[in-house]
Structures are given as structure tokens and as C-alpha cells.
């Protein structure tokens, strides 16, 4: 059963057709990925799915609900979370406060509760803190709890973004190049982490990656796009052998 359906998606920037008539689906509980050359339109697809870009035309559905014309915050509330290709943390806030942001859409205390410190307010604060701590623990950066995000090592910042996304309790997690800048050992850790996200939380994962070794290891389904169009799709074995994909994206040499 598919969790996300993208149909005939199109995105135009002035004269540039960044995404062109793209359709694909993401199966529930899968780890899927989108690959393609730089500038193919992968991040743009993410931006449309999460509501940051408005598609020129086409349809996007999450669990049967159309996401077209919805604000990013609404889409997150519906069960989608993402990380950004260029990290978008809250740089001056602590790791803990960064992750607490994820719980915003799952809680509802307002001004009144805060002013009078009502019981339900206090209970919710406890819950927020607990969920945040769990997520931080889960990605393994508990030792940085009180450090401000901008002073974290780069890798830790990546994990922090994932923790923050997990705190929104998503059905679908979108990761934009999560392995960029990680060394081999760290990538192995990331692979474990992504698997655990799916297995322990039942969260479907869709990611963009350029690291073929990583893709081969965990991705069950790949969609390849070039110039905004889908040029191939299937399992890693199928796709990585595809001539078109090799020519446009992989190249002949082995670099990995």
C-alpha cells in the first residue's frame, strides 16, 4: 500500500522547468530513495511535498489526503517530517530546545495555560521534554544536550536534524542527503539509524542521496530523475545497472 503518491508533478521557475511531469509512489514502511544528477530537481520535489514550493501543476497525496495548497506546518501536522540539504537548525538554541520544536504540532497549550501554569500545561511540558529526550537519545547525541546547535560538530548537527524531525511523530520522514560529509564509519552508523527509524517507529523513509554504497545497503526502492523527469525506477540492482542512469548519473568509473 502506498503512503505517498505523487502524480504528474510539475514545477516551473520562470523559464526553467525544474520538475516535469513526475509521478512516483512510496510504499508504507519502505526505505525509498530519489537519486539523480545535481540540479535534477530532487530537492525541489521535497520542497513541493512539504509545501515550501507550490507545484505548477500535479497532485500529491499523503495517506489519501491531498497536500496541494497546504502550508508546510499543516503538512507536518498531517504526519510528514523532513531534514534539509543545507542544515536548518535553530542555531542559538540548545539541542534539547531544538528537538522540543518537533512536539509543537502534537501539543496544544496556549497562552492561558502558560500564564496560570495549569495542571495540563505542566503535564504537557513533561511529555514534550520526555519525547525530546527520547529522540535525542535515539540518535545518540545525548552528551550535547545543553550545547547550542551551531557549536556542534557537523555530523551531530545532522543527527540533531533527524531527532527534531522524529519528534513530530511523522508517518513519512524525508531526508535530503543525510550522509553528506560523513566518513565511512559514520555512514555505517547512519545506516543503522535509518533502519531503526523504520523498524522501531514504523516510519517510512524517503531520502535523497548521492552515496551509492549507502543506497545499495538500505534502499529498497529507487526513483531516478534527470532534468525533472523520471528516467528509471526499481530496486537498486535494477537501477544501478540501467544504461541511462549510468550515463547521466553514475559514470563509468567507480568512485565509491
Amino acid at each position, binding site marked *: 500500500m502506498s503512503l505517498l503518491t505523487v502524480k504528474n508533478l510539475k514545477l516551473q521557475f520562470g523559464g526553467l522547468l525544474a520538475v516535469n511531469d513526475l509521478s512516483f509512489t512510496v510504499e508504507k514502511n519502505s526505505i525509498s530513495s530519489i537519486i539523480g544528477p545535481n540540479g535534477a530537481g530532487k*530537492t525541489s520535489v*521535497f*520542497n513541493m511535498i*512539504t509545501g*515550501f*514550493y507550490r507545484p505548477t501543476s500535479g497532485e500529491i497525496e499523503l495517506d489519501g489526503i491531498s497536500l496541494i495548497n497546504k502550508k508546510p506546518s499543516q503538512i507536518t501536522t498531517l504526519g510528514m517530517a523532513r531534514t*534539509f*540539504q*543545507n542544515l*536548518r537548525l535553530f542555531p542559538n538554541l540548545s539541542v534539547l530546545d531544538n528537538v522540543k520544536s518537533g512536539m509543537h504540532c502534537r501539543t496544544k497549550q496556549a497562552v492561558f495555560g502558560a500564564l496560570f501554569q495549569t495542571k495540563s500545561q505542566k503535564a504537557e511540558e513533561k511529555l514534550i521534554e520526555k519525547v525530546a529526550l527520547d529522540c535525542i537519545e535515539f540518535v545518540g547525541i545525548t552528551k550535547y544536550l545543553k550545547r547550542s546547535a551551531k557549536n556542534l560538530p557537523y555530523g551531530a548537527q545532522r543527527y540533531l536534524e533527524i531527532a527534531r524531525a522524529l519528534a513530530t511523530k511523522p508517518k513519512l520522514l524525508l531526508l535530503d542527503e543525510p550522509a553528506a560529509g560523513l566518513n565511512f564509519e559514520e555512514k555505517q552508523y547512519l545506516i543503522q539509524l535509518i533502519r531503526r527509524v523504520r523498524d522501531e517507529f514504523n516510519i517510512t523513509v524517503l531520502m535523497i542521496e548521492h552515496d551509492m554504497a549507502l543506497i545499495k545497503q538500505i534502499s529498497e526502492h529507487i526513483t531516478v530523475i534527470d532534468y525533472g523527469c523520471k528516467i528509471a525506477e526499481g530496486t537498486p540492482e535494477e537501477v544501478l545497472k540501467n544504461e541511462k542512469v549510468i550515463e547521466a548519473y553514475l559514470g563509468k568509473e567507480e568512485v565509491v
Partner: protein
Amino acid sequence: MEMFLQILIDGLVIGAFYSLVALGYTMVYGIIKLLNFAHGDLYMMGAFIGFTLLSFITGDGGVNTGLLGVAIVFIGTMTIVGLLGMGVERIAYRPLLLAPRLSILITAIGVSLSLEYTSMIGWGASYKVYPIKLPNDGLQFLGTQISFAQIGMIVLSALLMLGLRLFIDKTIYGKAMRAIALDQTACSLMGVNVHRIIALTFFIGAFLAAGAGIMSGVYYGTINFMMGFTIGLKAFTAAVLGGIGNITGAMLGGLVLGILEAFGTFYIGGSWKDVLAFGILILFLVFKPTGILGAKEMERM
């Protein structure tokens, strides 16, 4: 119809002043994203230093002051104030380049107060009457009158704007200015002496403001130590209306604001004209959030 034209001309003249000050505002903003609230006070300083120099050369009451003398005073004052602008940057802003932008805003207010009250202590609190006055000669056409001074003012600001525009768009220094606005560190990695370019920007901005300051003294006849405040505010408004950081925008914003005020005064009265001006500004920004010529911010996720 004549009335309409006449108001348009009245508005263009005020607008030309706004534009000149707005240019400096926009330049400094464009490069270090600083709303230099002290900019209007550099205009005031220009007016006062020009006043002193002019009084000096017109000791005889101004009868024998040649055009050359006046030109020298203009250039001299503008240079002095340009250097003053650089000095302000060096002392007050440079140490804060990496601080939160609001902190520099506060510094700018501090600088503004310092300049105003230095002037007050130096030249006194009351109005000074300018030593030279402009002749009233001009043209009459279609039942409207426009003086040569007014024509000169408008043409001069247009030329300055054009020159600046070319400088920023086409020269490598101009490009460096824009690059500094985006990423100072990366810019220094290109071999750009960031501080020097910023200082240059302040010089140009202050230079122009001083020019406008003297012109205002000569044109209106009086100056006082608070004169930079209102025009600073108006120039800021003009710069934003035009699209802050954009040279042509500042020019356009200044003129539009001037014309709006002139029509506002005429049709709804002087006390309400600012409501009209600000009201239109706000309405405009609602539909075009980055001003008349401001580039749409294209932020990638």
C-alpha cells in the same frame, strides 16, 4: 492641470532630497545590512560644516563669492563628511560587524545622538541661517514655475544615482560590495579587503549625504542640529519603498515619497499627508513585500 504639474514639481524637489539621502542609506544597508540611523545626521553635519566654510569665504556678505568658491566648499565639505562617515564606521560599527544586527542598530542610534549633540555644542541649539541664498530665477511653463535651482537639484540627484548604479553594477568594487553583503568571510577569501570596501561605502554614502545637506541649507535657508532626524526617517522610508539595497529603488522611492507628500498636502492637508504616505507604503508592501524594485528573495530550502 497646471496645479497638478506644479504639485508634481514641488514633490520632485522634496523627493530629490529624500533620494540623495536614501542613496547612502541604501548603500550602507546593501553592504552590511545596517540601518544607519546616523545617516541623516551626516546630512546635518554636511549642512553645518558647509555653513561654517561658506561663512568663512563669504565674510563680506556673499557678494563676491564666486561659483568656484562655492564649488570648493561643496567638495571640501563632502570630503570632510565622507571621512567622518569612515571614521564613524571605523570606531563604532567595525567592532560590531559580527554582532547581532540589532546591536549595531543601537550603536547607530548612539552615533546619531553623538553627532546631533556634538553639533549642538559646537554650533548651538538654535537655527542657523545660511550665508548664501539661491536666486529665485527660473522657468515658467504651462503656468507652473520651476527655478533653476530646483532643476539643478533634480538633475544632480539623477546623475549621482546613475553614476552610483553603474559603479555598483559594473565595477569589480561594486560587485565586491554586493558580495560582502552576502558573505564577508567568503569575500575575504577572494582576496577582498573587506574593511576597505566597507569604508569606501561609508565614504560614498556620507559624501552624498553631505552634498544634500549643503544643498538643503542653501535651498531652504536654515539648518539646525535636529534637521537630520526627519529626513533620515523619510529617506529610510524611501529606501524601503524603493526596495532597500537597490540604488535605483532608493532614487525612485525618494521621488515617489516626495510626490505622495506633495499631493497629500494639497488634497488632504499637511497634518494627514504622512498618513497617506505611510498608508500607501504599507499597502504597497503588502502586495509587493520587497519594495518597488527589490529583488524577490529567492531562498532555497
